[in-house]
């Protein structure tokens, strides 16, 4: 083997032996370090996965949603609006949507009712989200009754339970035919809740929004990118809250690591003196200590990061779920798609591995440049 590599091997061997000699102290440090990386990495991975999930889910949503405003409040879209939009260039597809909320006193939960064309859901039939079906004990061909806001009882048959894959979106969803929707909510004919627009060219979305505002001054276009940005902000905010809560723990670790890395014991100083006296160069001593710092910090980083990965993507981030996911009666069950952002991993690596290794260097350098004759005196 190349002498340089052999030398590094010797240095690593010696470093491992040195670490083993101060087992309790180093294991304690490693556990605290790994735990810190685990917490930070869990937080980063989970927030990033939720952001990706939201982005992925919203990718299928329309580019622009048009709402009508009356006195600053969301109001129904009256007949004729759809026809007016048809004349705006760049709009590929437009669809009047019917949806609303229904409060179910049985579960004390709100459902989202949404109309679909008769080709998808027949009159008298509904399709329900997985979480709703779970909570109400529904299966295909079961019937369920809802009392409408006007006091009338409507009975529907469950045509299907929506795929669990879409649970993040459909947990509380009830799909029914347009006619059933209008009858249930006594929704006036020709009116819609909002209008969904598809715009083929992403560069055109803002122009279309401006044209919509000009053509229909009482309307408010909501862009998909704005919704995405809102989600990002919500997750950023939650992540920030957790980081604030964890700041104390991070600081405590920083003090512990600094104390360990920066403070050389008399025993360690003596050993450095011996190593220099028996022929080790200052550079060898520093390299050995860098290996020590890297071995501890890399082990902690890899251990903590892998544990965080398993925690987030196999156990659903049980520790942070309540804070980061939000809360609901009909809680969607969904497995996060593993999404790792390279830049975030690099940032985490830099802020956990680098400071520790750097903290080691200053005292070692000071000890290593002292004359080796100290061991003779």
């Amino acid at each position, binding site marked *: *083997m*190349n*002498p*340089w*590599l*052999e*030398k590094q*091997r*010797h*240095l690593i*061997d*010696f470093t491992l*032996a*040195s670490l*083993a*000699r101060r087992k309790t102290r180093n294991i304690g440090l490693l556990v605290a370090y790994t735990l810190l990386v685990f917490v930070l990495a869990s937080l980063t991975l989970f927030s990033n996965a939720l952001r990706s999930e939201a982005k992925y889910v919203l990718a299928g949503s329309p580019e622009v949603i048009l709402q009508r405003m009356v006195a600053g409040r969301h109001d129904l879209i009256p007949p004729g609006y759809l026809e007016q939009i048809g004349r705006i260039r760049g709009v590929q597809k437009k669809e009047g949507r019917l949806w609303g909320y229904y409060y179910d006193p049985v579960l004390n939960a709100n459902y989202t009712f949404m109309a679909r064309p008769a080709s998808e859901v027949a009159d008298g039939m509904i399709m329900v989200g997985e979480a709703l079906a779970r909570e109400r004990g529904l299966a295909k061909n079961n019937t369920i009754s809802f009392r409408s806001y006007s006091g009338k009882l409507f009975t529907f048959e469950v045509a299907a339970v929506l795929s669990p894959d879409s649970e993040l979106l459909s947990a509380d969803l009830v799909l029914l035919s347009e006619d059933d929707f209008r009858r249930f909510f006594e929704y006036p004919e020709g009116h819609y809740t909002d209008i969904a627009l598809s715009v083929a060219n992403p560069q055109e979305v803002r122009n279309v929004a401006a044209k919509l505002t000009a053509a229909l001054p009482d309307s408010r276009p909501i862009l998909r990118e704005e919704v995405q940005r809102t989600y990002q902000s919500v997750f950023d905010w939650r992540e920030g809250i957790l980081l604030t809560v964890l700041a104390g723990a991070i600081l405590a670790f920083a003090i512990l690591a600094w104390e360990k890395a920066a403070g050389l014991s008399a*025993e360690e100083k*003596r*050993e450095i003196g*011996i*190593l*220099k*006296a*028996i*022929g*080790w*160069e*200052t*550079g*060898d001593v520093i390299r050995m200590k860098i290996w020590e710092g890297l071995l501890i910090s890399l082990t902690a980083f890899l251990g903590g990061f892998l544990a965080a990965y398993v925690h987030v993507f196999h156990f659903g981030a049980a520790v942070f779920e309540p804070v980061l996911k939000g809360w609901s009666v009909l809680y969607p069950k969904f497995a996060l798609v593993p999404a790792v952002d390279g830049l975030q991993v690099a940032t985490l690596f830099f802020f956990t591995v680098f400071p520790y290794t750097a903290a080691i260097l200053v005292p070692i350098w000071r000890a290593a440049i002292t*004359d*080796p*004759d100290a*061991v*003779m*005196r």
Partner: protein
Amino acid sequence: MIELLDIKKAFNQNRPNEYWALHGIDLAVEAGKVTAFRGPSGSGKTTLLTIVGCLSRPTSGRVRFKGEDISALPERFLTDIRRQSFGFVFQQFNLIKGLSALENVILPAFPTGRPRAELVARAGELFERLQLTHRAQAKVEWLSGGEQQRVAIARALINDPEVIIADEPTANLDTALSMEFMAILEGFTAAGKTVLLTSHDPLVVESSAVHRVVGMRDGRLIGD
């Protein structure tokens, strides 16, 4: 082999606690012989050995090793010379606790990048010669004083140096163990090594294994 020309050494120079440990030492050390420095504590014996062994530099004066002036060499070159040409046996042995005798012995060879198997084989030979094979895997803090000293000697020999430097080698040993050390010393000269040691133990300085005794007092030589 080693020439010292007007060596002076000051500690804490230009400070209120300035102290001159050596006041102009001129000495030539012959190769393949055992030279002992004798003198009371504070006479400058150990300081002189640290300068000869490249552990420190003189404040002024020159050190020639095999004809080459080494007193002005940068630290890296001094370390190279120290590692290749000098082996040290310290008074307190200075072994690293928690490591086995074997690990301690091969430590000075780590920076050379020699394969581990080669180092272990060389250490095995030294252990055999010093009758320490059975203690090779024992942690050094479990060894007796005599065993620790033999480990320190094996460590001094691992890089096969030409010069052995021993500072008060028998200070922590009883008479029997001191005699054992003197026997080992004779083995060194038989192998052609140059030995420099400090001692005020009559057992050492009056031994036939020592070829030359140099007296020291107050940082000056007081004659052979």
